[in-house]
């Protein structure tokens, strides 16, 4: 892509656009395009109720993608998302069976279980130097095995607690779903951590070159481990919200979130090799993916067609702006 023409066009634009990442701009442009296409198909597509509903659905993916982004910024990947989500949801529902104390601690307990999975991932990646792709696949399998043994092969009887349902579907502020507020809070915290704390700078530093970060006197291994723990915790929290949304936890509820969470982060301009990317891009990616899924389901596309279009769109968009620089 020629830098000069891009610079020439950008030079005439307001400052905040000029400073923005072209990938983020492309992602937002695609959102507008999708909204336009959707409105051609159905009038109600641009109604505030529908858009707010989309934002609510997006917030579950948004919470999960936030953790995924932290890990991808390190140049690693977390493939244990499916069963971290499921474990968080199922354990939170399970805790609710143990009286009032269990109900009160259900949500923290679910998140804790996710963090435990994340800590195992983190120890494997940071201290044992196992490739993240492998260790997270393995912990995913172990988490699945534990959940299968726990439930005896069936979905647990326990349903979501009132608090979980309130967080996922309630309206604390009239007109704004709680899930969206939660995503906004988590997103704001993430932006703060990434841009205003030394931990955040370290994450970017490790993503660029872990060796250099280590030589600068940073305990890179601890940072990597914390990042994985946070990712596991956020996945589990996403699962808790999903359980609240669906009023119950199910075994395969996390399967549908692995590809979308990676795709959302990468489509938002975060480099899969780490060290580069902004949270705004991830927000754009999450909304983009949610809208795409929504349009496909509004068009009553069967599951097969949805998967095909979905995969093709992701590959096409990555080819548009997610390519690695040509070697040499």
């Amino acid at each position: 892509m020629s830098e000069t023409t891009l610079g020439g066009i950008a030079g005439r634009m307001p400052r905040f656009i000029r400073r923005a990442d072209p990938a983020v701009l492309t992602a937002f442009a695609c959102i507008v395009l999708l909204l336009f296409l959707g409105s051609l198909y159905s009038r109600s597509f641009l109604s505030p109720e529908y858009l707010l509903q989309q934002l609510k659905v997006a917030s579950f993916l948004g919470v999960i993608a936030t953790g995924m982004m932290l890990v991808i910024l390190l140049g690693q990947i977390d493939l244990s998302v499916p069963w971290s989500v499921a474990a968080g949801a199922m354990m939170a529902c399970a805790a609710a069976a143990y009286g009032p104390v269990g109900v009160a601690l259900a949500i923290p307990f679910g998140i804790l279980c996710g963090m435990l999975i994340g800590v195992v991932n983190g120890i494997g990646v940071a201290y044992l130097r196992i490739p993240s792709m492998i260790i997270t696949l393995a912990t995913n399998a172990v988490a699945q095995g534990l959940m299968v043994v726990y439930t005896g092969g069936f979905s647990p009887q326990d349903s979501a607690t009132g608090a979980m349902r309130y967080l996922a579907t309630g309206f604390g502020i009239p007109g704004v779903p709680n899930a969206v507020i939660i995503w906004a809070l988590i997103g704001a915290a993430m932006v703060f951590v990434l841009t205003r704390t030394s931990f955040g700078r370290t994450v970017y530093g490790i993503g660029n070159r872990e060796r250099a970060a280590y030589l600068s006197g940073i305990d890179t291994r601890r940072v990597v481990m914390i990042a994985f723990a946070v990712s596991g915790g956020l996945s589990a929290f996403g699962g808790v919200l999903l359980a609240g949304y669906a009023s119950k936890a199910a075994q395969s509820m996390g399967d549908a979130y692995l590809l979308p969470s990676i795709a959302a982060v990468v489509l938002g301009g975060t480099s899969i090799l780490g060290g580069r990317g902004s949270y705004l891009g991830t927000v754009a990616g999450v909304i983009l993916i949610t809208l795409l899924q929504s349009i496909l389901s509004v068009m009553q596309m069967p599951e097969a067609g949805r998967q095909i279009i979905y995969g093709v769109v992701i590959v096409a968009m990555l080819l548009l702006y997610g390519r690695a620089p040509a070697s040499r």
Partner: protein
Amino acid sequence: MKDWRYWLAEQRGTLLAFGIFIVMFAIYTSNHPAGFTANVVQTASNKGVLLAFVAMAQTLVVITAGIDLSIGMIFLLTNCLASWLVVGTPMQTTLGVIAVLAVGLLCGAINGAIVIYGRLQPIVATIATGAVYYGIGLLLRPFPGGSVNEDLADALTSRVFGVVPASLVVLLAVVLVIWVPFSRSVLGRAAYAAGSSETAAYMSGVPIRRGKFAAYTLAGLLAAIGGLFLTFFTYTGEAAYASGNAYTLFSIAAVVLGGVSLFGGKGSAIGAIFGALAFRTIGDLLFVFDFDPLWQPLFQGVILLVAVSLGAFALFRVRNRLEWFL
């Protein structure tokens, strides 16, 4: 150092996998109620061969320092396709088999083209193409069903001369026809070199792009052979998402057990085959010892976790702490 020492160092992973497999299989057969009979071996080999093909496919890609997370989905897709095409007269069946293999080859080539010429990261690219392949599989078989030429299926899943399982013979043939020529060809060397050090390989004038492309393409072909065999065993095609994912996961486990380095450039498909057979045998040990099948996923997960953690022992040999970070 003598030549045989180099050979031994190169084959250490393969030999280790072979050893693990022999030990596990000995435990398995000695505790099996029927003992070491042709029937037990045939059943075990029929189950193991499926994973062995997929693991071989994964090895080819892993050698180039890539990964193919769509391999299980290619396996599913070709299974669904075979349940439509591999039927009828011998002539039609032959054409069907060729078509299924060609589709596998095409899937692999698409992966390779996107990763190498599109310059996308293999993880993301193959997750996305995997979704596409799964979608096509689901389109072909929204519900489990279909049929297969049963004469061919029975011939390939029975025993040759009443002793040797036919599936093992096919596996051996595939190794001799695909893996051995590939690993000794210029392209195969290029795939190894690209995985070992892409820059150095490029400087030496090795055709790395063609080598990697050949590796991805042949991986698709091998996954398709696996898909064909799945059809021969089950007589049906089924697009089960969980099963495709499990095969992808198990193929990685088998590759790791088989001594193939996930950083690329090291290992062989033979090792991965023994890794796959060992992994399957370990999974089946539970049945021999009469455990509840519910424990199987956890058991396999723990084995996977332990197997990948074994790689961490290399850390003890690190003299300079900077070598922790690649």
